[in-house]
């Protein structure tokens, strides 16, 4: 029945749009967190180097290098999260990075090391606690959600185009080759 097809189509489109809007919101939120974390570290790398050193998990000779690479990496992940093309790769890297942060903080707490988090520079400093561990783990989970449900731009377009055919619409366009 043509009217029924239109109803199904409209409903499916709405669901897809809602899902895409929610994912976009999540990506923007996570990207904002990473930018917020990266900028103070880039402004004052010495302070961040000091924070890394206090975790006592990185050899001293690598502290300076990490103090520069980590915020640059955070910034790159933030930008990539906002990109339709790189969103899943960025989400995967974000999840791994945040999980690593959570593990580093957890080991410090477990060893009784009382230290500053170093997460958002000196301005919004907080001591490492199980709350900061949970925060990193939670954000890592958020990144996993983006990774699981986010789709590359090409795949999203392809699925949108093929939906009508499943309910009797026009034949699907040829698949868009992934770049």
């Amino acid at each position, binding site marked *: 029945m043509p009217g029924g097809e239109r109803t199904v189509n409209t409903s499916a489109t709405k669901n897809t749009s809602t899902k895409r809007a929610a994912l976009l919101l999540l990506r923007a939120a996570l990207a904002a967190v990473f930018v917020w974390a990266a900028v103070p570290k880039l402004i*004052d*790398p*010495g*302070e*961040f*180097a*000091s924070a*890394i*050193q*206090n975790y*006592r998990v990185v050899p*001293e*000779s690598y*502290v*300076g*290098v990490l*103090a*520069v*690479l980590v915020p*640059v*990496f955070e*910034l*790159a*992940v933030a930008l*990539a999260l906002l990109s339709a*093309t*790189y969103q*899943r*790769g*960025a989400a*995967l*890297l974000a999840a791994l990075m945040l999980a690593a942060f959570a593990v580093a903080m957890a080991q410090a707490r477990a*060893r*009784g*090391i*009382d*230290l*500053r988090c170093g997460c958002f520079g000196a301005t919004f400093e907080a*001591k490492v606690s199980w709350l900061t561990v949970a925060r990193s783990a939670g954000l890592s989970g958020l990144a996993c959600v983006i990774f699981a449900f986010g789709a*590359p731009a*090409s795949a999203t377009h392809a699925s949108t185009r093929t939906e009508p055919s499943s309910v009797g619409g026009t034949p699907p366009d040829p698949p868009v080759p*992934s*770049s």
Partner: protein
Amino acid sequence: MRLPVQVLTICTASLAVGLSLLAIRGGPRPTPAPGAEVGVCSAPSAIEKAANQWISLDEAHGLWSTPGVVFVDCRGPADFDTGHIASAISLPSNSAEIPEGLFAILAHAQTIVAYCNASSGCASSLRLAERLHGLGLRDVRILTGGLPGWLERSFPAESGPCRQCPAESAP
């Protein structure tokens, strides 16, 4: 774009930018923590309970020629031979044990000033200071800025093997 390609692209781009920044600005030195802040940054220990364990370059220079003040180089023997604070003794922070003759010098010192490379944040100085505190030596200071800061100010320095070390402990 395939997932591995996405990951690789992000990593490569970050690495390129990060290494360029390192080449331009150099690796940052950890900001030395003033004595009052050490307790916030690291595990509670004997050294953290001692007041004023950090000493500034100028203050250390003022003490340098004072009898009873011993400067201890915490770096490895090769680094020590390349250059060190004049009249300092070599005691690498990772040495398994402190030779008896060397410990006698330290035990008779009024003040011990430990130093290493500032680029490493003087964590090895902190470790050695903790160790010496554990052995009952009370006034152990850590030089803020380490050897690079000392040399930048053209304070007395020398190279070669440890002249002040007892024969059995010379590196």
